[in-house]
C-alpha cells in the first residue's frame, strides 16, 4: 500500500461525489439561467429570483409550511420526549409493549396508509363530535405531529437510555422531588437531543407531501404541494431559484453548526490539558 491516492481511487471519489451533488449543482446553475426554458442555457441572470419574490402563491405556501413545521415539531417534541422518558424509566406498566410498538409504528408504515387512515379518522370524528370541522390547518398539524412524534420518541429514547440514572438519584438524594429533578436535572442534560429531535421533526414536516395531501383542505397548500403541482404543469425556473435559496439556508446552517462544534471541542481539549497540567504541577 502507498499513501498516495491512486488514479483508481480518485476516479471513484469524483464519480461518487458527482453522483451525489451533480443534480444539486445543476439546479443552482440553472436558477441563474435567463431563459424561460429550464433546459436551454441562455446566459446569467437573477431574473427568476425577482419573479419568485413576486409569486404570492409560493411565498404564502412557504410561510404556511414553516408555520406548520414549527408548530407540529414543537408538539411532537413535547409528546415524543415524554414518550421516550416513559419507555426508558418505567420498565413495567400495563400495555407497555403495545405502547412501545405503537410509538414507533408510523416509522415503518407507508405514508399512503398513514395519510389515508388519518383522513378517515378526521371524517368520522367530524361526524361523531363535530371536530375538527373540515380539513385544513388543524388537521394537517395533527397529522404531522402524529408521525413526527415517532422520530422524536426514537431520538429521545436512545438519549435517555444512555443517561446515567444515578444523576437523577443524586438529585433526589440531595432533596429534590421527582418533578423538580426532571425539570432541573434531566431536561437540561438532554437539551441537545431535544433540539435535534425538534430539528428532525421540523425537517420531516416541512418535507412531507403525501400525508399533507390526504389531510389538507382548501387554502392550506404547503410548499411541497405547490412545487409538485407546478412541476406537473411544466418545469418552472422559479422552482430552481427557490431550491437554490433553500440549499443556501441549509448549507449556512450546517457550516455554523460545524464551526460551533469545532470550537466547543477545542475548548474542551484546552480545559482537559489545563486540568492535566494542574495535576502535574501539584505532583
Amino acid at each position: 500500500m502507498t499513501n498516495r491516492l491512486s488514479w483508481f481511487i480518485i476516479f471513484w471519489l469524483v464519480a461518487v461525489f458527482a453522483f451525489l451533488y451533480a443534480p444539486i449543482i445543476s439546479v443552482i446553475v440553472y436558477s441563474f439561467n435567463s431563459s424561460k426554458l429550464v433546459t436551454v442555457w441562455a446566459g446569467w441572470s437573477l431574473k427568476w429570483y425577482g419573479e419568485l419574490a413576486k409569486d404570492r402563491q409560493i411565498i404564502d405556501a412557504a410561510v404556511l409550511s414553516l408555520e406548520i413545521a414549527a408548530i407540529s415539531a414543537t408538539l411532537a417534541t413535547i409528546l415524543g420526549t415524554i414518550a421516550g422518558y416513559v419507555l426508558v424509566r418505567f420498565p413495567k406498566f400495563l400495555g407497555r409493549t403495545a405502547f412501545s410498538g405503537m410509538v414507533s409504528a408510523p416509522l415503518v408504515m407507508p405514508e399512503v396508509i398513514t395519510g389515508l387512515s388519518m383522513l378517515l379518522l378526521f371524517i368520522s370524528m367530524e361526524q361523531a363530535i363535530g371536530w375538527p370541522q373540515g380539513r385544513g390547518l388543524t388537521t394537517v398539524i395533527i397529522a404531522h405531529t402524529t408521525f413526527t412524534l415517532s422520530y422524536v420518541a426514537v431520538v429521545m429514547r436512545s438519549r435517555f437510555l444512555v443517561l446515567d440514572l444515578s444523576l437523577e438519584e443524586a438529585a433526589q438524594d440531595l432533596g429534590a422531588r421527582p418533578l423538580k429533578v426532571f425539570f432541573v436535572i434531566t431536561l437540561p442534560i438532554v437539551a441537545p437531543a431535544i433540539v435535534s429531535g425538534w430539528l428532525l421533526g421540523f425537517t420531516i414536516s416541512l418535507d412531507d407531501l403525501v400525508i399533507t395531501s390526504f389531510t389538507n383542505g382548501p387554502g392550506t397548500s404547503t410548499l411541497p404541494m405547490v412545487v409538485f403541482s407546478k412541476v406537473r404543469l411544466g418545469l418552472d425556473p422559479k422552482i430552481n431559484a427557490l431550491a437554490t435559496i433553500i440549499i443556501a439556508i441549509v448549507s449556512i446552517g450546517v457550516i455554523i453548526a460545524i464551526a460551533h462544534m469545532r470550537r466547543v471541542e477545542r475548548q474542551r481539549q484546552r480545559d482537559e490539558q489545563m486540568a492535566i497540567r494542574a495535576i502535574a504541577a501539584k505532583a
Partner: protein
Amino acid sequence: MVAVEKPTKQPQNKHISAPWTDPKAEPYIRIENVTKKFGEFVAVNNVSLNVYRGELFSLLGGSGCGKTTLLRMLAGFESPTAGKIFIDGVDMAGIPPYDRPTNMMFQSYALFPHMTVEQNVSFGLKQDKYPEPEIRQRVAHMLEMVQLTPFSKRKPHQLSGGQRQRVALARSLVKQPKLLLLDEPLGALDKKLREATQFELMNIQDRLGITFIVVTHDQEEAMTLSTRIGVMNAGQIVQTGTPQEIYEYPQNKFVADFIGSVNLFEGHIVEDEQDHVLIRSDEAGGDIYIDHGISSAPGARVWVAIRPEKIQLTKQAVNERHNCLSGIVKGIAYMGNLSIYLVQLDSGKQIKVTMQNQVRASEFMIDWDDRVTVTWHANSPVALLS
C-alpha cells in the same frame, strides 16, 4: 464458634471508644432482618446490623454480594422486601430519598454535567431553601476543605478524576447528613491518589463526626478506613468486626480466604483442652498445635488457617513434634521489601510463605528447589469449623 481471648484493641479512629463492645450503647443505624428480593433473586438475605454514631463502617464483599443493594436501601432508592431500617431511632419505611437524613456519594460520582462545581455543591442546600448568604458561606467552606476553591467555576468535564471525586464528596457532605453513604468512593482513582484520599476521608470523618457507611470490594481500602467491617457473601453478612478481628480471627473459611491471603489445611481434632488444641491434618502431613482451646467435639472436622507472613522458612533441620513441616521451594516472587515463596510440602500441598528481605544476600538465602523446614508459632493458626 472459636472461643479465643481477643486482646483489647486500639480503635483506628480516636473518637470511637468501641461502642459495639458496650451492650448498653444505643446504635445509630439499626438494620433489622432486612431482606431484598428482585423477583426470585435474593440480593440481601435477612441482614441485621447495628452501626454506631461516628463510625466508619465498611461493607466489604465481591460483586453481586448485595452490598450496594443494602446501601441503596439505606438511601431509599430500594425498599426492603422484609425487615426494618432505623436511622437515629426513626423507622425509614416509606420515606423517599429526598426526605431522608442521608446523603450518598455515587460510584460514578453523578456530578451534574451542566452545572459548575459551585452549583453542584450548592444544589442540596438550595433544595432545603437555606438563605442565599448561608448557602454561599457553607459552599465556600466546603470547597476550601476539599481544596477546590480555585476550580469553583469549572464544569465537571474540566476536572481530573481526583478533583471530580472531591466535588462529589463535598456535595454529599455539605448538607451535614446524619449518615453518609459512599459507594466505592475510591474505585476510579489510581493507587497514589487512592492512598492520599483514604487519609483525607478519615480526616474529614474525624473532624465532622458524621457516620459513614462505605461499600467497597477492595479489602485494603476497607482495612485502612474502617472502624469496623462487615464482610458480605451471597446477600448475608458473614462476619462483623474491627479490621484486626477480621484479619486475625476470621470466623469461617470465606472470610479467611477473602481477606488477605491464607493457607488452609483440613484436619480433625485430636485433643481439645482448655489451653490448647491439637489437630491432625493429612493435608499438611503433620500435627498442628494451637495455644488456645476451641469448644468442639474431639474428632470434629476443622480447617486451620495460617497467614503466609506468620510462617517461617529455614534451611536448617528443626526438631519439633508440632507445627513443623518440610518441603521444597517451587517458586519465589521477589517483591523488593519481601519475597513470596511457594513451597511444596511433602504431603503434596502447596503453601505460600512471605518473608521480609532483611539482608541483601547471604549464604542462608533460600533458593529455588531448596529443601526447607516450615515452622510457625503456636498462636499463629486459627481453627475454623465452617
